[in-house]
């Protein structure tokens, strides 16, 4: 019996030491979500809390910051100032990029009008809509820009740990929310937990990650394992439920526009296809953009912007070879496209 006790004491002591070692290091932390309330129905982080973000196991490329007054990794928002709101997921949150280089910050530098970014990692279309409703109701909003990226439509119809999804009932779609992330929030106070869960993404899938001989090939001698995004169009299927979710989202957005808020939908491109010389529009974009145009909403495809820039500079837009989020350069391209396509500078002049 004492053997088992000593074994676990040794293990426990090591865990404590690791926790103490990781405390001062820029391990992911601070990303706790306060419960959603009637006052703040959207998923967000703790306002004014400090955060640190790093993805690599060796904590390279870490960023540190403080959430704004509304609980987003962005500049503070003046609730009385005329605003352009950029709503999206981790592509807008862009925690891996230094503050000042994110879309919201770039736009804010170019437009003499408040630009508020509402990016939450893991958010999908229904989350965007809940946020948009709140923003339109609490801030004098000139324009709402939805940044829609790969997986947003598919993610909109799947139940998830935090946030909202479209649930199919007998007659209609409804938005449901899940707030069952209390346990994870509690564990998030441990740096070791954060390191394992957020950075290393420990999970059952790791048991499946093993090494077998690839079919019809020998050993990849000195394989560098370089990954670049691959085209997803071939595998992207729009199910009837996803289509219904798209219809619902566009209808809600159109309703907001009828209330006097200008709406724009910005679609990320299939960058893997662009690198391969292809077009870059996704099946998700085809569906949503088609519906949006019918409803009189503005749409911007980033495919052309990325494709033309890639043709000229051959510079990739990904954060790194394993992470398809836009890097600082990609954020610049997106911001530039928004400024040009939406005439945001003109809007600002009119407002002034």
């Amino acid at each position, binding site marked *: 019996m004492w053997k088992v006790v000593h074994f676990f004491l040794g*293990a426990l002591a090591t865990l404590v030491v690791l926790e103490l070692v990781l405390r001062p290091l820029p391990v992911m932390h601070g990303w706790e979500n306060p419960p959603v309330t009637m006052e703040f129905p959207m998923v967000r982080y703790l306002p004014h809390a400090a955060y640190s973000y790093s993805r690599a196991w060796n904590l*390279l490329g870490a960023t540190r910051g403080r959430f704004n007054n509304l609980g987003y990794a962005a500049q503070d928002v003046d609730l009385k100032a005329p605003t352009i709101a950029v709503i999206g997921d981790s592509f807008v949150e862009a925690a891996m990029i230094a503050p000042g280089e994110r879309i919201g910050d770039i736009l804010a530098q170019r437009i003499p009008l408040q630009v508020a970014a509402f990016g939450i990692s893991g958010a999908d279309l229904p989350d965007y809509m809940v946020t948009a409703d709140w923003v339109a109701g609490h801030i004098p909003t000139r324009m709402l820009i939805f940044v829609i990226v790969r997986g947003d439509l598919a993610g909109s119809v799947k139940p998830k740990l935090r946030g909202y999804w479209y649930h199919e009932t007998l007659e209609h779609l409804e938005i449901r929310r899940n707030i069952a992330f209390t346990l994870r929030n509690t564990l998030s106070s441990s740096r070791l937990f954060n390191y394992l869960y957020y950075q290393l993404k420990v999970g059952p899938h790791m048991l499946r990650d093993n*090494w077998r001989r690839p079919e019809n*090939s020998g050993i990849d001698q000195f394989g560098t394992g370089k990954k670049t995004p691959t085209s997803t169009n071939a595998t992207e299927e729009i199910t009837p439920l996803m289509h219904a979710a798209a219809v619902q989202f566009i209808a809600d957005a159109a309703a907001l526009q009828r209330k006097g808020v200008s709406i724009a939908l910005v679609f990320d491109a299939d960058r893997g296809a662009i690198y391969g010389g292809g077009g870059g529009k996704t099946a998700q974009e085809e569906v949503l953009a088609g519906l949006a145009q019918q409803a009189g909403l503005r749409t911007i495809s980033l495919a052309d912007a990325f494709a033309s820039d890639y043709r000229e500079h051959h510079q990739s837009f990904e954060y790194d070879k394993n992470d398809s989020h836009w890097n600082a350069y990609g954020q610049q391209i997106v911001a530039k496209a928004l400024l040009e396509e939406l005439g945001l500078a003109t809007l600002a002049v009119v407002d002034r």
Partner: protein
Amino acid sequence: MLFNSFVFVLVFLPLTVIVFFAAGRFSRKAAAAVLAAASLIFYSYWDPRYLILLLASVAINYTAGRAISRARDRNLAWWFAAAGIGADLAILGYYKYADFFITSLNTAGALSIPVLGVVLPIGISFFTFTQIAFLADVYKGGVREYRFIHYLLFVTYFPHLIAGPILHHKEIMPQFEDVQTYEPETKNFTIGSLIFLIGLGKKVLLADTFAAYANPVFDAASLNHSVDFASAWAGTLAYTLQIYFDFSGYTDMAVGLSLLFGIRLPINFNSPYKAISIIDFWRRWHMTLSRFLRDYLYIPLGGNRNGPLRRYTNLLVTMLLGGLWHGASWTFVAWGGLHGLYLIVNHAWAAVFPVSHPNRLRALAAGGTTFMAVVFAWVFFRAPTFRAAANIIQAMVGGTEISTDFHAWSAGWSSQFGLQESGERVAATILVGLGLCWFFPNSQEIAYGLQLFRGRMQWGTFGAVAVMIVILLAINASRGVSEFIYFNF
């Protein structure tokens, strides 16, 4: 199955340990059979079709060995040995070298013989050499144990099956006979898991880090892109560290794993970059291969028995074949040839200027020269083509741009090779790696030197090591599959 995967450490290994010792309580033969069966499962996980090849190879060699031992006269025994070794070389030749020779013939004679597209079965070089040594020793009368289950286990024993160490039956078979092997011992678990942890740390924290620096430089060179002086050195030094930490890490893991079963594998590395001569280097680097090449190639060729010229020729031939053993490419032959030449120069120098105990300054100069010679040779080992090797070497000797502005180079490094890390960080990491090689004790010195293995401390240490292993596995898994360099050989 990879040693650095969760499925191996959390599923395969504990199950095998438990069933092995449980079987050992009833029958040693059953326990050996369990370990052999586990080894076959381990091997077939990569691709079950090649299990047949492995078993056929075992059957051929065991049959040949028995035939040699029972042969009535030496002449007949010689023929059996020749047949067995010939079969081994034929199998190795087909699977490893057929396409290489076809391609070489096509290039030399402007022919267009279609290549066979043969897949290299994993571990074939290792299990073939192990069995060639067995047959040679049977012929010399040095083998006493012929139990099939022990022979099967000796060849397929999973800790060494894929990338060594290359075992000698004399050091392993008696351990299968030993009753104590089949009784679990806390000290073996603790020291074994600690050595495994050190090996895993070498692979996950060091080798894979240096691989990320070396790969883009050699990739650029192979694409004929310009590589500057500092980048060429950074890439080559990074590879020098990668291959050491990768291979010695794998060996540590193998040694540690084997110790869990109470079986001691031979040491394969003894701080090779601390060597003060090339002769010394080969006594410290891949020691079991050096031993094999010496006992079964160099000495049969005549060794040093027929004068210096013959000795040097034997050395060169041994090292050229040693290079070819590593891979079916002329760059490996060049690497082996280069080391052959180094050894010749070293022996000649030692004959002219004999020094038994060099002073510190002399040892430092000798160590530095040895290290630089080894680094230079690694370029041929790593580069996929001679053109790529030439590009790297040209840059290393100042044949391309030499930037005197370190900060400019540092900033350019990241963008040129698509890395997040600055050149300064890369340089600092390489210095740390070199420091670990030159100034720190090696795995076995650490594992056996620590006094954490007495009484109850052993179980506490075991618990701590288990946690660290899981953390390192998680780090490794977070980056995807990372195989070991020597799996390719």
